[in-house]
């Protein structure tokens, strides 16, 4: 049965794509996660997750033009689908609900 939840890394990737808008391909997605998520990311790990997300219909991709600085290889741009955006929101709400009332991690202990 297909999963209806997101791993933390998948959530970070979807959020990075949403933040990058029309410029979401491997390099900026990894940069965004490294900068904002404060963790080291391998490009291959990003693509492995993107492949899984695409298989679940949460993202779609389109190829850009090949550029010399990439050795003549094209960029693959990613967009979050409606289903993906809905799952991001549901995950956010679930996390938020769990967060509420936790005095220890909210610094009130």
């Amino acid at each position, binding site marked *: 049965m297909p999963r209806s939840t997101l791993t933390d890394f998948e959530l970070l990737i979807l959020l990075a794509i949403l933040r990058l808008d029309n410029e979401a391909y*491997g*390099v900026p997605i*990894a940069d965004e996660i490294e900068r904002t998520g404060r963790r080291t990311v*391998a*490009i*291959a790990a990003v*693509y492995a997750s993107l492949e899984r997300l695409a298989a679940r219909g949460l993202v779609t991709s389109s190829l850009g033009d090949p550029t010399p600085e*990439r050795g003549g*290889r*094209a960029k693959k741009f990613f967009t979050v689908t409606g289903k993906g955006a809905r799952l991001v929101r549901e995950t956010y709400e679930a996390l938020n609900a769990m967060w509420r009332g936790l005095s220890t991690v909210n610094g009130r202990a």
Partner: protein
Amino acid sequence: MTGGPPRFATWILKHWTSVDECVAGDLVEQYHRGGRSSLWYWRQVCSAIAHDAIRDVDAHPVRAALSFGVGLVVMWWGANYILYSLLNLPEWLFVTGLTKGLYARGLTLPQPLREFPMLAGWKALVYAVSGWVVVRTASTPGTSIVFAYLPFVLGFNAITFVNSVGRYPIAQLTIDLLILYPLAAFAGGLVASRARRPIRGVES
């Protein structure tokens, strides 16, 4: 920083993995624009190999487990039983009386063929066959399945290593069990994956 990213790493990425071309493009772009080091590039390529292997095993876990099982049986049985049986075949034939005539004429298997380092060569051949078998029985023809098989070979050999310490020199065990034989298994797998690789652009 001069020139492009490490060529051998790029070659490995292109020929030994089935990762998307865009991944290679991203790595080259990041290497140039992000001012990344060669070590970073190598780490990314190793990560791509690992993810490629995990993805292929994950796609067909039962088939992959069966392939690894068959490969390990070939490796263990071949290196410990079949190989010695073949090397001792002339004596066995002599004992059974089938080849007394050959022995009488001095036609025996030369002893150096049965001792180190030639014996290590025969065993390496058995490991190469096991790598070949794994790729031939796996559902994916790529080298990723060989990369996934290597940790099992190394794990198996590490156990043999521990059990053999004291009976053989450490240097010999290290070279044979942890370098030569795994490389042979990998080479066997590479040969098989070349033979099974579909032609690009042709739907199978």
